[in-house]
């Protein structure tokens, strides 16, 4: 519920509706599960709402009273000589709902729901108001006759308690169903429910002399009875519509239309809440956990790509902030729903995001160069020359602009390591176990440094040294000029991750899952142990270090303390190395997605699904992010929205990470080629 803080008594005073006066105080009315409810839902009832005077009352020095649970009816109690209490179905706000047996029908077992309202207010004005609200609710319900609306049998008062006796609906509410169901509801199913809801809303909205606004549409107020029909329960705040009348802000957080906060209740508010309910049912994203009125920020297809664009359009229209832009009536919305393929039992066509003006597959290659084996290494571009390693044992130097071959250097093993250039030298490791330094211009060998096992890690050059890991379980620091080792650090597992450097430290992961933070002098600063291998290379941000692990998580660690600041779980091993740009971290996962996460708190900004594992590491350039996938494509996405800009198909999986220089994207493929593509 909304919060009316008693800043200014004049501002916050209003006429509370329903029995649930206390909810006016606090957000989270959503947690109130039962009202006039005729639910026999197995969902556990929320704890009984504590009985506290509403703020207006509190100002009149009314003292808090004991919780109403103490006043619950015992099993076996008989009300009015007719209704035998069998047990509590639920409670919330200031009411309790019991299952009862109607003794007027002794030959058969006729069950009913008895809603009891405890009038605990001591202030006579509030007491009277609460009774009036109850009676109004009862009399509205009693006049209604619709298959989706539970029938009212009786209402009466006893002392300071009021009772409403209604039909007992066996079944489950949609919120409970939502929690129990794995995966998503089929579109056709949700559309059928939506059509039924539109029918009952049409009935309510066309009552005379005044339309009835339900005001509390949400999954937990929609029961699916044992015949699979939708029933609308809890008319607690249903209100006789009076055009333009200003009331108290009330409603269910997350589903309520914007105008409800201004105290306006009208039929098109129910249409908004229906839109919100459908959005929740289709995406499983609970709107009560999101800022209000922000559905447009969570497009349905982002969570559930199986939903048709047409249904999404209908829901978007129901969720328009501006009341005039919504459907004019529930009848109009129903007609739109009926026009859907999924309403006629036809298979829905899934939403395919194809941004306007973009032809994703029509990209022209600038040049391509064929090596003699797979290119897993990522290219490095320096002063117009592209360096790249291949599994044919060679390091290639190509003209970055034309792709013309300049020279190559053969090692004794395949090259998975991505080269780095500094001080006129190109550095790279080979699976023959050595770290090589070549003259960057001529390809002449300057020196080699042999390690004791294969090298898959890539060199990082900083502080006058090359840092590189080896399968011999060491991180090495080698002088760039002399090729002499300055120090080595023993790790727990093979080091295939590429070291990252901060202002005074080097960070690298190993195949045993340990991330090492080492000072420039080679001394350990801290370590972090993930649950599986850290093959991903760390990325250094201003205060945090980002790294992926094969334990499926992306971790952000405090650079100085090694403390986990946040972690994000993907649905597969994270071998891809994160790229940080501004406030966003981009990283791929073997679950097939490229993720964009908020760098400071790890919230998902967007994710994009490719057709295969994403082990390639993303590159960010001028508002676009580039990444390869095992599905053979190179993708270019809008860095802000995750929308596809273009994709380019190579002849094999792309595990190499793209590099961008001078408006050209360079990337290798397992089809043996290096490609140069326009950004």
């Amino acid at each position, binding site marked *: 519920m*909304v*919060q*009316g*803080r*008693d*800043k200014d008594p004049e*501002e*916050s005073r209003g006429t509370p509706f329903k029995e649930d006066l*206390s909810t006016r*105080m*606090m*957000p*989270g009315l*959503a*947690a*109130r599960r039962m009202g006039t409810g005729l639910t026999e839902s197995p969902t556990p009832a929320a704890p009984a*709402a*504590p009985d*506290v*005077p509403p*703020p207006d*009352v*509190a*100002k009149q*020095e009314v*003292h*808090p009273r004991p*919780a109403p649970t103490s006043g619950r009816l015992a099993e076996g109690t008989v009300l009015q000589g007719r209704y035998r209490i069998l047990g509590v179905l639920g409670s919330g706000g200031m009411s309790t709902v019991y299952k009862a047996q109607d003794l007027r029908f002794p030959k058969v077992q006729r069950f009913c729901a008895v809603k009891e309202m405890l009038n605990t207010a001591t202030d006579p004005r509030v007491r009277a108001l609460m009774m009036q609200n109850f009676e109004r609710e009862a009399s509205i319900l009693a006049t209604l006759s619709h298959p989706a609306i539970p029938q009212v049998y009786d209402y009466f008062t006893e002392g300071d308690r009021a009772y409403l006796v209604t039909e007992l609906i066996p079944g489950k509410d949609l919120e409970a169903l939502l929690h129990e169901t794995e995966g998503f509801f089929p579109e056709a199913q949700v559309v059928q429910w939506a059509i039924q809801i539109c029918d009952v809303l049409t009935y309510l909205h066309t009552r005379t002399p005044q339309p009835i606004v339900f005001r509390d549409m949400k999954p937990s107020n929609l029961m699916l009875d044992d015949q699979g029909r939708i029933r609308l329960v809890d008319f607690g705040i249903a209100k006789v519509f009076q055009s333009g009348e200003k009331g108290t*802000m009330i409603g269910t*957080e997350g589903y309520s239309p*914007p105008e409800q906060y201004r105290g306006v209740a009208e039929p098109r508010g129910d249409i908004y809440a229906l839109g919100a309910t459908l959005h929740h049912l289709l995406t499983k994203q609970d709107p009560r956990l*999101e*800022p*209000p009125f922000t559905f447009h920020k969570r497009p349905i297809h982002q969570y559930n790509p199986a939903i048709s664009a047409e249904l999404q359009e209908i829901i978007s229209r129901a969720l328009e902030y501006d009341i005039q832009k919504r459907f004019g009536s529930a009848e109009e919305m129903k007609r739109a729903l009926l026009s859907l393929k999924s309403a006629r039992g036809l298979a829905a066509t899934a939403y395919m995001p194809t941004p306007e003006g973009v032809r994703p597959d029509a990209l022209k290659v600038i040049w391509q160069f064929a090596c003699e084996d797979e290119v897993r290494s990522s290219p490095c571009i320096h002063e117009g020359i592209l360096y790249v390693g291949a599994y044919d044992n060679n390091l290639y130097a190509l003209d970055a602009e034309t792709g013309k071959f300049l020279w190559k250097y053969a090692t004794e093993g395949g090259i998975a390591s991505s080269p780095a250039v500094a001080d006129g030298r190109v550095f790279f490791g080979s699976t023959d176990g050595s770290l090589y330094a070549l003259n960057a211009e001529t390809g002449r060998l300057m020196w080699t440094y042999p390690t004791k096992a294969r090298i898959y890690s890539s060199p990082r050059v900083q502080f006058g040294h090359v840092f590189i890991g080896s399968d011999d379980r060491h991180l090495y620091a080698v002088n760039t000029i002399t090729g002499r080792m300055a120090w080595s650090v023993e790790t727990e597992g093979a080091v295939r991750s590429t070291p990252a450097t901060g*202002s*005074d430290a080097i960070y690298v992961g190993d195949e045993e899952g340990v991330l090492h933070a080492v000072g420039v002098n080679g*001394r*350990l*600063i*801290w*370590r*972090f*142990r*993930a*649950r599986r291998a850290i093959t991903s290379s760390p990325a250094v941000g201003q*205060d*945090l270090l980002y790294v992926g*692990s094969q334990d499926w998580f992306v*971790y952000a660690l*405090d650079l*100085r*303390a090694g*403390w*986990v*600041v*946040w*972690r994000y779980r993907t649905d597969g091993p994270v071998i891809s190395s994160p790229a940080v740009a501004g406030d966003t971290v981009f990283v791929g996962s073997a679950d097939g997605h490229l993720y964009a996460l908020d760098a*400071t*708190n*790890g919230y998902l900004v967007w994710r994009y699904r490719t057709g295969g594992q994403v082990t390639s590491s993303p590159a960010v350039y001028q508002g676009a992010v580039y990444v390869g996938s095992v599905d053979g494509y190179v993708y270019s996405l809008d860095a802000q929205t995750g929308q596809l800009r273009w994709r380019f198909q190579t002849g094999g999986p792309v595990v190499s990470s793209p590099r961008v220089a001078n408006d050209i994207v360079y990337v290798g493929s397992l089809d043996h080629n290096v490609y140069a593509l326009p950004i």
Partner: protein
Amino acid sequence: MERPSPRPRLTVGWATDVGRQRSHNEDTVLIAELEQAGYYGTPSTALLVLADGMGGHLAGEVASALATRAAAQHILQACLTLLPIREHSASEPSLKEVLIEAFQRANELVTERVPGGGTTLLCALILGNRAYIANVGDSRAYLVSPEGCRQITRDHSIVDIMVELGQMTSEEAVHHPQRNVLYRAVGQRGPLEVDTFLCHIPPGGVLLLCSDGLWEMVSEEEMVQVVATSSSLQEACDILVEKANQAGGKDNISVILAAPPEIVDSEFHWPEI
């Protein structure tokens, strides 16, 4: 014998005041400084908590006090366990999880003990020059630096959303009768969503936490000016409260100012292994 130079310390100032129009102060302020030297050391650490309670009949002050204590207890416990170590693992809770869990506990406690009451809750854990911030409600955290004032948190108020959606200007929001209507607060029943932030405090920068009793009364320009011209952070806090009162003091006023130590890179003096 040469004594080592003292380690640079965090500086903190704070103030809380009932204001001019309320009969009691529903705000709660908590400051905890944590310093540990020795084989297992911590960086200069401080936990700052500010809560603005609501609900009549003592509910507001009780809610803000309980929430503050519950959150601080949880966060400090985690700091003492996790900070002075150099071998971390994935089995530890992340800092974000610690902060969120602290808020959940506060929420459960307030819901249970103070029905009808609620509170905003703002926590900042300062580690060296990084501030890890968690927030629910409309108390605010700002970074005040020579370059100006930047609001870090966002208010969980209906008017804030209206402004974001372009339905209202910021000007209109300031005077809107429902500007105090929150859609999230500690003490709400059901799940509580918590915002978390990381703020890098640059040299010369000061972290400012305050309740709406300050930010509704004193402009951001004034805050910057007061911080820049005061002789100490404590003096700045006192002046800010005075200014809010001069402007009407419509609500309780609370403010915390904190500046990290000047030198942060030497914060770790790990022994050699």
